[in-house]
């Protein structure tokens, strides 16, 4: 995973491709998913369902499978449950739950491989000299970009994080040197392509700069399993899974969805049904080489579909109504898979696996199917070597994707009811290695993003006396300033609801914020 280039480091295919450049022996991604467990069923995600039933929900009585499927299928949900689930009951449960407005939703992005937080949120304050000394090759500059002619490198600059003297955003966040020129049109040459820094300025990002557990664990396997379980041991159930078992639905598998080939261990339950959705098909009436700006074919088709049909002509009526539905669905879904033929990407999602999956997440969350939790596993962070060339593009994509996602959620009217959690199984060593990379460490960056989030540097910053504080168990590691279980518990207490101690029994000190704000993760 280490040396993958931007855009290819996603999923098991990328893992296979990159296998020969791995510097870390145990970087397999797949074990973040529950393997060896077969889904009990596959539920078709119908066009109508994903469009939020533009023509109304089919009535439960008499809705047989064929009627339900009659509008087409945009994807399949693999259902994981204790026993076989009737697809129709599942859909009915999903629709019933979806009817409950504004239930709080959580999206979890797992940065697979151990993300280096120190090159993302850079200690440019009192510890900058310490940081620079330990990262002579891959460290960031304080302020503007610095050209190091002797070593033929440009050190990417930083911008102070408002309200915090110790940390700066790596060139927001994390543009390449040339992309940072505002005269070039802004980030990534795309003026509308905002990032985490702008969400921060809006007060919608809470940062925990060094979240992990103590004693930290530098095995990908064990560390991620602990994070997934919300416990300092491996467990059959994930922390979200236990929450679902206790407070979730016993009939709606779409309540928690992993956008992957299998379910994440985070949502592994004992009894509550959950689902994995590998892909969704985007749809539209585009034609190759015909720009939407010249001819908007969806709009033209809508006119043809709106022509009135003579009484009793059921088959022509069917044709026109299906065309009309297709247009409605297309407009509702937007381009699901990258920039599509007619250029639908109003929110500026970057191309690639993360942007695509966040788009899908937005569609699913907005479809009113009772989805409470979505997990995304996004790999490529195990940067043992060539870190700048691999991590920087990843972070840029992450930053822009999250901003696009937020814009999409707002447009769908669910921005205020959705929160995104970003974490990695561990941080990395403070000092760079000989391969211009960093090895497994501790205390990675953890973020909560979203309109409802009470923004700020919520977690302690492990800096004192002009230096980064180190882990007493391994002085090469960053000190773990925040126990991740505390944040989970606060997510449960403030956002998802339920008794945090029932889900995560490990006792934790009372939650308190480093930025002096009330001890919450939500604004209200």
């Amino acid at each position, binding site marked *: 995973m280490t040396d993958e280039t931007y855009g290819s480091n996603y999923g098991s295919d990328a893992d296979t491709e990159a296998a020969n450049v791995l510097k870390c022996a145990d970087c397999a991604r797949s074990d973040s998913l529950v393997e060896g467990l077969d889904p009990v069923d596959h539920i078709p995600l119908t066009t109508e369902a994903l469009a939020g039933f533009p023509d109304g929900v089919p009535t439960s009585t008499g809705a047989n499978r064929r009627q339900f499927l009659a509008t087409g299928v945009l994807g399949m949900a693999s259902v994981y449950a204790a026993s076989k689930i009737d697809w129709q009951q599942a859909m009915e449960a999903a629709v019933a739950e979806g009817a409950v407005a504004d239930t709080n939703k959580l999206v979890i992005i797992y940065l697979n491989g151990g993300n280096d937080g120190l090159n993302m949120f850079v200690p440019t304050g009192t510890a900058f000299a310490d940081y620079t000394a330990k990262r002579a090759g891959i460290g960031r500059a304080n302020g503007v970009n610095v050209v190091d002619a002797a070593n033929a490198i440009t050190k990417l600059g930083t911008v102070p994080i408002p309200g915090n003297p110790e940390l700066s955003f790596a060139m927001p966040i994390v543009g390449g040197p040339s992309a940072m020129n505002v005269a070039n049109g802004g980030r990534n040459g795309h003026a509308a392509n905002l990032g985490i820094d702008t969400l921060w300025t809006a007060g919608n990002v809470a940062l925990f700069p060094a979240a992990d557990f103590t004693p930290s664990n530098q095995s990908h396997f064990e560390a991620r399993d602990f994070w997934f379980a919300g416990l300092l041991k491996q467990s059959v159930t994930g922390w979200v899974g236990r929450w679902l078992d206790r407070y979730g639905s016993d009939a709606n598998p779409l309540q928690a969805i992993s956008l992957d080939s299998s379910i994440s261990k985070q949502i592994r339950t004992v009894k509550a049904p959950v689902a994995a959705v590998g892909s969704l098909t985007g749809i539209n009436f585009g034609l190759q080489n015909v720009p939407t700006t010249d001819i908007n074919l969806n709009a033209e088709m809508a006119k043809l579909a709106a022509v009135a049909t003579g009484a009793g002509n059921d*088959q022509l009526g069917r044709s026109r109504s299906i065309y009309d539905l297709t247009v409605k669905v297309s407009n509702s879904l937007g381009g699901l898979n990258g920039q599509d033929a007619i250029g639908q990407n109003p929110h500026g999602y970057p191309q690639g696996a993360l942007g695509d999956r966040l788009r899908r997440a937005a569609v699913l969350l907005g479809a009113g199917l009772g989805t409470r939790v979505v997990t995304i596993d996004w790999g490529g962070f195990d940067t043992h070597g060539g870190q700048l060339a691999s991590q920087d593009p990843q972070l840029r994509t992450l930053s822009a994707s999250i901003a696009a996602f937020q814009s999409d959620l707002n447009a769908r009217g669910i921005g205020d009811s959705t929160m995104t959690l970003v974490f990695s199984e561990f941080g990395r060593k403070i000092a760079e290695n000989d391969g211009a990379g960093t090895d497994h460490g501790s205390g990675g960056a953890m973020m909560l993003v979203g309109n409802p989030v009470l923004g700020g540097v919520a977690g302690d910053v492990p800096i004192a006396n002009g230096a980064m504080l180190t882990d007493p168990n391994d002085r090469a590691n960053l000190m773990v300033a925040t126990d991740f279980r505390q944040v989970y518990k606060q997510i449960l207490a403030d956002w998802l609801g339920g008794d945090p101690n029932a889900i995560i029994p490990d006792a934790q000190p009372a939650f308190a914020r480093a930025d002096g704000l009330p001890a919450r993760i939500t604004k209200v």
Partner: protein
Amino acid sequence: MPRISTRKGGVSATKKGKRVILKKRPKKISLKSARRQHRLKATPAVIQEIPMTQAMVDRLFWRAGFGPTAEARSAFTGKKSAEAVDWLLDSPQGALQGPAPTNGVNALDIFGERGNDDLVTEWIDRMVRSPNPLPERMRLFWHGHWANSREDVSPAQLMKKQNDVLGKYSDLAANPNADFATMSYEMATDPAMLRYLTGETNVRGRPNENYAREIMELFVLGVVDGNGKPNYTEQDVKELAKAFSGWRVRNDSTDNGANAMLAEGYFTPSRWDAGVKTLSWGKSGAFKDREATEAVLAHPNQPFYVTRKLWDYFVPTAPTADVHAQLVKTYVSSGFKIKPVVRQILLSAELFASIDEPTMIKPPAVYVAGALRATKAAIIDTDPVNSMMRMGQRPYYPPTVAGWEGGISWLNTNTVLERYGFIGRVVGKMPDLTDQPTETPQAAFDRAFGATASPWVSAASKANLLDLANRAPARTAAQRKNRQVVLRTLLLAGPDAQVM
């Protein structure tokens, strides 16, 4: 008036693990429902005496073919429908017109490495390039009726051989006396059928009921009569299964060798259950396959089933009891001949109902072949085959032994987009998209309309398309080409283009 059963009525199609329960109750023919079904348009019953408008010619050549050609329009507009119908029924299929398709590089090789795609392409090509389209249209009907799938039949030669057999009952000029009884005898021991419904394993003492069930349920008799009363019992299935025992497939070559075309069903007396079989409608005897088929054909409700199924293939509304009775009369009095029944249906007033607003969704095969005929586009590699699979109708691969459900089930958001995408690819490769810099919007529309063989489009849709032609940017050559491509695509792949 005997009540009739429909294919859709309470049918449960069994074939190995595939069991499709169709819950729709059988349609019952009553005066009330007949009136409702015919509220579309009161069309004169003596339709065949009226000179045809071009719309009527178009209707006939869509329902009985794959869309009108310019020749058909000019030959039959203003003529009585009987002239056109008799041309369709009495003309030879004719040698295929125009260039033969390739699989991208080479000529088709239907039993070769890419055999399955080429096999299907070869048939689609016949639909596209036959001068008289009715034989292939009929063959498509019979394929959906005696629905066997290449999925479960190997070698491929058996499917092609069956397709040839179906042709004998489809080319009604060459086989004017083709009858359903003979067809039923032949299909009972057709090697693809023996393989698909596992008749090969039907041995005395170890009966396999597959074919015995389907010949009554789907092929010849129907599950229930028009009152919903069962036409046969489970005991009848068991009795018939014994009669059909003893058959196997000779030349069981699975190496795709040329000899596989010689494969045939053959009878082994020692495997046959020679006992007396007794059926609930009073037939009894030491039946073998032939006598068993005769017995099913002698069931009093049999004539209602296949005549109704043929009607449904050409006309989307149910026949009145009287019309159906007339069909049955023609069928029975002719000795179960196919041609007079098809003739009567094609001459019926109902075929031309709602002539200004077509009422029947084109099956994918008709849609694809029709578009290729209309645009004179060559078949490009396997595009039609793959596309038709996603449209829900891949010839030689019916989804179950009950064939394709058809009707409104053809269209959903996936299949509509597939139809649209296919047309987009066909139009994009049309050779006559040359730029005409001074072309007016009206001329652009007219050119698109002509290039797509003047398809039916409602007045309101036509106004929309003309409006689009006016609005579409046309400053650059690329924009003018796009205007032309879009107009053609919408004419052939909009909602109006889906019906015939």
